[in-house]
C-alpha cells in the first residue's frame, strides 16, 4: 500500500532532532532557514532575553511561594520560556490571546502584572485581570475549551472587517494556546474544523512539552502534531520551542498571515516541561532524569545569552542590572502575594449573572444574616 504516509520519519525514529524551524542552535549559533527569517535587531533579542529571564524568575518565585504555603498550587513554565516569549512578541497588541493555565511568559509580554496571575493559584479569585485590558483572556483549566473561543473570536474579527485591510496596526487575529495533551480533545480538533471552514484568523500555538502530566506525547499521537493542520486545510509548522528567535519568527509569520485574511496556522513549539506538571506532581514516578538532563543542555535562556555575548550585545553590567530587576520583581511578587486580601465571603454571590437573579440575592441576604449572628463584622464591612 502506498497510501500509508503516517509513519514517523526515519529522522525521528533514529532519535535525532525532529525536523523543525531553528534559527539559533543550543550553542547560540545563528542558522538560517529557507522559509523563516529573524529580522529583528540586537535590541529585540535583548528584550527577548530580558523577558525570558523575568518569566523564569516569576516561575521560580511562584514555585517558592507555593512551597511556603502562600499559593495552593503553581503550574511551572520552566523550560518553556522561549516558546512563550517568542509567541508573545510574535503577536501585536490588537491580537487577542487565549491562554491555557501555564502562559505566564506570554502574560508578561502582554504587559499583565505577573502578580495578577497569582490570585487564581492562591485561591482568592478565578482570574484577577480584565481580559480586555491587555487582550489576554483568563486562564482556562478545562483542557482545550479556549481553542473554540479563540476561533469564534477570530470569526468575529472577520465579521468586524478587521482582517485583510493591510493595515498592520488595525488588522487583528487571535492566538489559541494549548498543550500536546490537549491535542487529543474533541474541542481542539473541532476548532480546526471551524477555523478552516470559516477561514478564521486564528493561530493555534501548541507547546508540545512532551508530557501531559504523566502521559508522554506518544500517548496522544503517533505522528508529529503539526501534521494535523494540513489535513484540515491550513499550514502546520514545527518550530524549535527552545529557540526564541524561531518561535518569534514563526509566530510573526503566522499572525501576519491570519491578519492578512489568509486563514489559520498551526504552530507546534517543540519543547520540554523541565519542572513537574504542577507543584503537586511528582515526575520521578514516570520519567527519567536522563531525559531531563538532555533537555537541560538545550536551555532556551542560555543560548540567547551565548548569542548576545558572542556579538558583544550584552556585557556583565547588563546581566547584573537584569538580575537586579529580577530581584525586584521577585520581591514585588512576594509582597503582592502576601498582601492579596482574601475575598469577602459575600463576594461569592457577585457576578453569577450580569443581570442579578432574585434567587442569588436572597441567598446572599440569608447568608449575610447568618454570618451576622456570629458577629463576623468582616463579612459585612467588606462589600
Amino acid at each position, binding site marked *: 500500500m502506498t497510501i500509508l504516509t503516517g509513519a514517523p520519519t526515519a529522522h525521528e525514529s533514529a532519535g535525532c532532532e525532529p525536523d523543525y524551524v531553528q534559527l539559533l542552535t543550543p550553542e547560540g549559533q545563528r542558522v538560517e532557514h529557507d522559509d523563516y527569517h529573524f529580522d529583528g535587531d540586537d535590541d529585540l533579542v535583548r528584550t527577548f532575553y530580558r523577558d525570558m529571564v523575568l518569566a523564569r524568575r516569576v516561575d521560580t518565585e511562584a514555585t517558592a511561594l507555593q512551597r511556603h504555603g502562600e499559593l495552593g498550587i503553581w503550574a511551572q513554565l520552566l523550560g518553556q520560556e522561549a516558546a512563550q516569549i517568542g509567541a508573545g512578541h510574535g503577536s501585536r497588541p490588537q491580537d487577542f490571546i487565549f491562554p491555557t493555565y501555564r502562559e505566564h511568559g506570554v502574560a508578561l509580554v502582554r504587559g499583565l502584572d505577573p502578580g495578577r496571575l497569582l490570585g487564581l493559584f492562591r485561591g482568592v479569585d*478565578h482570574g484577577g485581570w480584565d*481580559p480586555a485590558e491587555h487582550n489576554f483572556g*483568563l486562564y482556562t483549566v478545562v483542557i482545550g475549551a479556549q481553542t473554540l473561543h*479563540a476561533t469564534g473570536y477570530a470569526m*468575529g474579527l472577520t465579521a468586524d472587517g478587521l482582517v485583510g485591510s493591510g493595515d498592520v496596526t488595525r488588522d487583528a487575529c487571535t492566538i489559541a494556546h494549548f498543550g500536546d495533551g490537549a491535542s487529543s480533545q474533541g474541542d481542539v480538533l473541532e476548532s480546526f474544523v471551524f477555523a478552516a471552514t470559516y477561514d478564521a484568523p486564528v493561530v493555534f500555538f501548541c507547546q508540545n512539552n512532551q508530557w501531559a502530566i504523566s502521559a508522554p506525547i506518544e500517548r496522544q499521537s503517533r505522528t508529529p502534531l503539526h501534521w494535523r493542520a494540513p489535513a484540515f486545510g491550513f499550514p502546520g509548522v514545527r518550530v524549535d520551542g527552545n529557540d526564541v528567535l524561531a518561535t518569534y519568527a514563526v509566530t510573526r509569520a503566522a499572525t501576519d498571515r491570519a491578519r492578512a485574511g489568509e486563514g489559520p496556522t498551526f504552530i507546534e513549539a517543540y519543547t520540554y516541561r523541565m519542572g513537574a506538571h504542577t507543584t503537586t506532581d511528582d515526575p520521578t514516578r514516570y520519567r527519567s532524569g536522563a531525559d531531563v538532563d538532555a533537555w537541560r543542555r538545550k536551555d532556551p535562556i542560555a543560548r540567547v545569552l551565548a548569542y548576545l555575548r558572542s556579538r558583544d550585545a550584552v556585557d556583565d553590567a547588563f546581566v547584573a542590572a537584569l538580575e537586579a530587576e529580577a530581584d525586584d520583581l521577585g520581591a514585588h511578587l512576594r509582597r503582592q502575594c502576601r498582601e492579596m486580601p482574601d475575598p469577602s465571603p459575600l463576594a461569592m454571590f457577585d*457576578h453569577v449573572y450580569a*443581570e442579578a437573579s432574585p434567587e442569588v440575592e436572597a441567598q446572599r441576604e440569608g447568608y449575610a444574616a447568618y454570618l451576622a449572628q456570629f458577629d463576623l463584622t468582616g463579612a459585612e464591612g467588606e462589600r
Partner: protein
Amino acid sequence: MSKVTLAKALNAGLRTAMEADDKVVLMGEDVGRLGGVFRITDGLQKDFGERRVMDSPLAESGIVGTAIGMAMRGYRPVVEIQFDGFVYPAYDQIVTQLAKMSYRSQGKVRLPVVIRIPFGGGIGAVEHHSESPEAQFAHTPGLKVVACSNPVDGYWMIQQAIACDDPVIFLEPKRQYHGDKAELDLDATPDPLFTSTVVRRGEDVTLVTYGPMVRTALAAAEAAVADGRSIEVVDLRSLSPLDLGPVIASARRTGRVVVAHEAHVNLGLGAEVAARVTEECFYSLEAPVLRVGGFDTPYPAARNEHHFLPDLDRVLDTVDRAFTF
C-alpha cells in the same frame, strides 16, 4: 398581524431582534438555506446574509464554543441546537464555560448567548428527538433557563432572551410549533422575561407547568369544570430563576399543588417546586405537592410516547390524588 403559529412567532421575533441590533447573529446546523429543520429561521439568511445567519459544521461543542468566542468579541449569538437530544456534545462548553464566564471574570466578560432548543416529545420521532433536558441546565448556576408555551410568549421571550446580557437556554416546545395560532400585538408591553404567570384562574388546586404541557394543563382545567373542580394554572415560563411568587400565592389559597412536566419526575423541576412551595406554604397545604411527569425510563419508542407523556387524564388523576389527603 394575522394569527400565527409558535414557529412563525419565533421567526418574527428573531427577525425583529436582528433588525434592532446588528450584533445579533444566528448559528447552527442547517439554519441558513434550509431555515432549520423546523423552519424557525426560515428566510433569515436570505434577508440578513451569510455573515449573520451561519450554517455551522456538524459539531455542537464547536458551535457553542465559537458562539462564546463571538460573544467575547461583542456579538449576541443565537444558537440553534437541532433537537434536544443533541445538546449533550455541547454540554461541557455550556456548563463549564458559558455558565461561568461572568463569575470567573468578576463580571468583566459577559456572554449574551441564547441557546435555542426545540424540546419535548409528542411528535412521533425516533430516539434522542424528544428529550426534556431543562433540569440539567437549571441546576447550573450562571445559566438562565426559560420555556415558552405559546406564540405570543414565543415572540416576546425570544427577543427578551436575546436582549439579556446573561446566557439563556431557550426551550421551545416543538410539538406546539405548528399548533394553536395566536394574534401578535406588536405594541403590547410583554411581561418581564423571568416571571411566571397565572394563565387560568381557579380555586381548588394549583397546577404548575411550563412549555408543552401548558396546553395540556389548560385542557385539564377545562375538563375538570365538569367535575365541579376549579383548577388554577400557572405557566412558569422561567425555570431559572424560578419565579414562585404566583405559585405560592395560589397555593396559599388552594392548599393543593400539582406540578406537571414531560421531563423525568426524578429530580425534575417538580422536585424543586415541591421542596420550595412546601417550605413556604407549610401551614397552608392540605396535601403534599404532587408531581406528574415522564417516567424514570429513557424516552420510549414513539408508539408508546402517549403513555410516557403525562396527558390530560394522567394530570387529572394526579389532581384527584391531591384530594385524597
